[in-house]
């Protein structure tokens, strides 16, 4: 049995961080070996051999939840080797198993986050004057989310000069690798869910609802070597292909 955190650098940051390349080598969280059956003959037919492992970590490491990302991968696997006599090849089989942590906190009190988007609230625009007028309001029921519960909230398009093409929720992971000397921070999209299509009715509350995908999300993680965080973007695409994005960092946990 083995548990490993694999860190990988994105191609764009490779050049910068070659210097401390060492820091991105795999971190082994757990590793143990047991013999499940003594040497001998296995009788013909189906033989089931029971086994169990205590999940003891290596040294002072912590068992993180299983997570598959782009630059950070936390994976636990079982490998069974069967050594055979001289003339036959050894057999080996790999199998991943999933680790869920114990609930971290007893209860999270949801604190709604309200937002309003108008042309004036936007940063990062080149020609503010060319922007059409719009007013979008809404709220997220919580940014401190329970991973097994969907993200909820609502958006209201109060008014807009230009018809809307689509409203989408973009779930983004932010993976940070590195250490004290420096770090690489990369944001990648996990999934994108459309919640409104076409020119929606003004003044109507459109529900925000997103289920966190399994495997690709885990409770927000901060360690010395790497960080896994999540964010959600409310993306509003206008008919003239203007893209309006409102970013919300999320904190995921298991209850």
């Amino acid at each position, binding site marked *: 049995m083995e548990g490993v955190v694999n860190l990988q650098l994105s191609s764009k940051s490779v050049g910068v961080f070659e210097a401390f390349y060492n820091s991105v080598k795999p971190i082994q969280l757990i590793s143990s070996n047991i013999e499940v059956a003594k040497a001998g003959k296995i009788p013909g037919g189906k033989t089931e051999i029971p086994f169990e492992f205590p999940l003891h970590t290596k040294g002072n490491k912590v068992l993180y939840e299983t997570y598959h990302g782009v630059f950070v991968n936390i994976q636990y696997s079982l490998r069974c080797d069967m050594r055979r006599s001289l003339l036959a090849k050894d057999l080996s089989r790999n199998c991943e198993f999933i680790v869920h942590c114990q609930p971290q906190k007893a209860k999270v009190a949801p604190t709604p986050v309200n937002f309003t988007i108008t042309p004036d609230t936007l940063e990062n625009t080149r020609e503010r004057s060319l922007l059409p007028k719009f007013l979008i309001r809404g709220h997220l029921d919580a940014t401190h989310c329970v991973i097994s519960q*969907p993200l909820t909230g609502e958006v209201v398009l109060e008014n807009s000069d230009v*018809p*809307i093409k689509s*409203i989408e929720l973009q779930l983004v992971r932010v993976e940070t690798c590195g250490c004290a000397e420096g770090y690489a921070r990369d944001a990648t999209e996990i*999934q*994108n*869910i*459309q*919640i*409104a*299509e*076409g*020119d*929606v*009715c003004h003044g*109507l*509350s*459109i*529900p925000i*609802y*997103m*289920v966190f*995908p*399994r495997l690709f999300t885990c409770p927000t993680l901060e360690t010395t070597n790497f960080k896994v965080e999540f964010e959600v973007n409310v993306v509003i695409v206008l008919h003239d292909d203007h893209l309006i994005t409102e970013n919300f960092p999320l904190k995921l946990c298991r209850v």
Partner: protein
Amino acid sequence: MQSLQMRSRGRNYEAELQRCRPEVALVEFGDYHPLKPIMVTDTKTRHGARKGSTSSSSSSSSSVPPDPLSSMLDGTDPLSMFAAASASETPAISRSASAGDLGRKRKEKEEEAVGADFEPWSSKRGEILARFTTTEKLSINLFMGSDRGKAPSPGSSAVSEKVRTRLEELDDLEEGSQRELLNLSQQDYANRIEELNQSLKEAWASDQKVKALKIVIQCSKLLSDTSVIQFYPSKFVLITDILDTFGQLVYDRIWSMCSDPRPLPDSFTVDDVNDTAKETCLNWFFKIASIRELLPRLYVEAAILKCNRFLNKSGIQETLPRLTAMIKGIGDPLVAAYTRAYLCRVGVEVAPHLKDSLNQNFFDLLGTFRQIGGESVRKQLALQRVEAPEYLTLYSPAISWILQCIAYRAPEPLLTEMMERCKKLGNNALLLNSVMRAFRPEFVADRATDFIGMIKDCDEAGFPKHLLFGSLGRSLACADPPESERLTILNEAWKVITKVRSPRDYVNCAEIWVEFTCRHFTKREVNTILADIIKHMTPDRAFEDAYSQLQSVIRKILTYFHDFSVLFSMERFLPFLDMFQKDSVRVEVCRSIMEIFIKHQLDLTRDPVILNAMLHICKTMHDSVNALTLEDERRSLALLIIGFIRMVSFGRDFEQQLSFCVEARATFCNLEPVLVQLIHTVNQLAMETRRVMRGSHSRKTAAFVRACAAYSFITIPSLSSIFSRLSLYLLSGQVALANQCLSQADAFLKAAVSILPEVPRSISVEGKLRSSESFLLDFTNNFLAMLLVVPDHPEHGVLYLVRGLLNMVQDYTWEDNSDAKVRVYVSALPLLAAMGQETYVYSVPKVDSNETLYGGDPKFLSEINKLCETLIGQILDHLKVLGRDEGTRRQGALAFSLFGVLLAHGDLRNNKLSQLAVNLWNLSHKHGHCEPRVSVRTLEFVKHQAQQPDMSHLSDTVQRLTLQSRT
């Protein structure tokens, strides 16, 4: 062979009859008698036995012994016993039934929860497909597996469109492949969708679950495409079929996963579901939750809504409102409305008790109603060149369905509230229409006046008003509004309907209202409406496109007006019929009228109005017959016309009736069965006259019956079937004779004899070619029997007709190897014997037969005897021939029948004759083909006869008759 004198023995018919009559025994009431009507008096027993009580609750009052059939059954008949048994066994059977069976049963049960009075989606389906059609070209755009969108391919512009489609068709539905099918006709489109449905099933069966899901997602994506908007409702129907298939597949799969040791009961709970099944189910939901686009995500999740039952109790209850809310995100109002309809449909199917989300759906719909008139919709309509009224009608199936779900068994206050909400919206015609279609007809009918008011207030530019009135009319056809309001309702409605310009819209609407009018009003109002329809439909021959609606108008009128005198007194009814100018439709309409007439006209009629109208209708049907008309068609038309002719009676006014028949003959000359019926009618008329005059005609009635005879005489030759001609000649001859029209009777019989040679050797009976011989034999026997009472014509010789017939028989080309001719001779002998008697066995009152004419003149008798002689000679010759040609069996039979005739009618005191009889007997037994039992019986009969006074000579003969078995 020696020439033989046939002498008939003298007969005393009276005495013979006396002897033959069996003793009369009176049957006491209550005694058993085989012909006594069987009365089943015991009908309750069955129920009694089923309840387990043994007491028979027989209610019979008479002492009739129980019906042998019912007494055998001992209370319960076997069929109901089975029924009772199977009712108690069903649970046992179902336990062992296969999963598929159970699935079906489950479905049935669910439908039960909704109730039979809920009009199911399946019935709407066809209607929508038929109504929303397009001639525009459609396209299907499928991207399998990739969300990257339509990849811009710069090279594609160089390749022609067709080649491109073909190339793309080569691609399979593989990962990442993209297909765009262009220029599809509507039918092609439906076929493509069906193909997808098939490939979904195949993919599922071959365990390619991901591919199956992809197909479903791609299909539901098609629903966001509103180009060719007229077709959208049909597209919705086609694609939701696929979704239904998918939902069912997923459900069945998970269901079978947890049915491993034994099938899951119908009312399973979450605890009965094992973990693997739960995990699989959860997996589906996760997969679906990550579908990028809104519309597919909504549709697919709705499709597998039912699977929530595997996960937790409240799943459906929580999901429905969430999905309902999510629909708000759909911008296009039409797409949103249909998504709501689908959600409601699934919701009602899966959880009929959850009404709240239905209502919420409707309120949300109302909330987004203003979008329909919005900017983007208008732009789209302008682009597709679709008029606003047409666009609005696209909504009606969806909204009607949602409302129907809501209104089903809904309490009155809710409906009222819904109406109030609808009223608040400005342009509410569309809603109003759906409300009227979906809510209970009784509800609508009670408020009909309100509805009319609301319809009037509606915006003229939007939804067409005739559709609104059509919907109202449909409700009123099923439920009655308060009596006092009916006339105002009709007036108000018709005021609007009559103003509808387009004949098509007009007739669609008018057709619906005809039913209401027929139901509650008299012919006056219906007449007015007919007049109005005629007025609208006549210009530009608009009726040509509306035959089915006009036909339905006629059908509705016929359902409510069974009194044809009332029906035809509507001035506009016949002019209305004149609008059916296409032959096939016209005949069909006439036919339906006739069918109703025959079914409901119980009394004979002479009402000139009915007669004229019916004659007109029948003539129409008759005139449609041509050389190409099928035999069956002719027959059924003829039957209908005959049905009419039989209903006509002028009572004592016989002459009028005859002239009706004359007219009818002229009108229906192409249908033979009708002519035959007319001849029968006229013959009946003659006999009726005779009955009225008690047998003695006055000068006037005599002339009349001669006229009847003349009618038949000139009508019969126009028939083509030879046997109907023959039998009608004979029948009419009999009628004429009964009415003392001697020369007419003579003419009939002569005519019959003269056409005898025309009888073909084989005729077609029910499509098969059969020999006519037996028919001909039957006819001649019948004819011979008649000839006994026909007096000889004073100008022709003795037995003119008999000789004539026999000559014809002799000259007729019979089949080779047939005894038919000789058989006729054998059967002529009894006639000749009967003619020689002093008093004939039967006679026609007031007609002198030959007995009186000749009074036993020896010359007459010798004529008869000579004739007999010739006949017997001929027969014996034939017997000889048969003996030579190995026809011994036929020889025996023939000889025996001649023996029988001699025994019955011949005077066996004559030695020669008795010798002949003995010879015949021996001949018939010579080759042993004789039925011994018949021989024994015959012998016994002869012995019995010999004991009669003045028959003692027979005992000698008996001595000489030997039975073969004894030798």
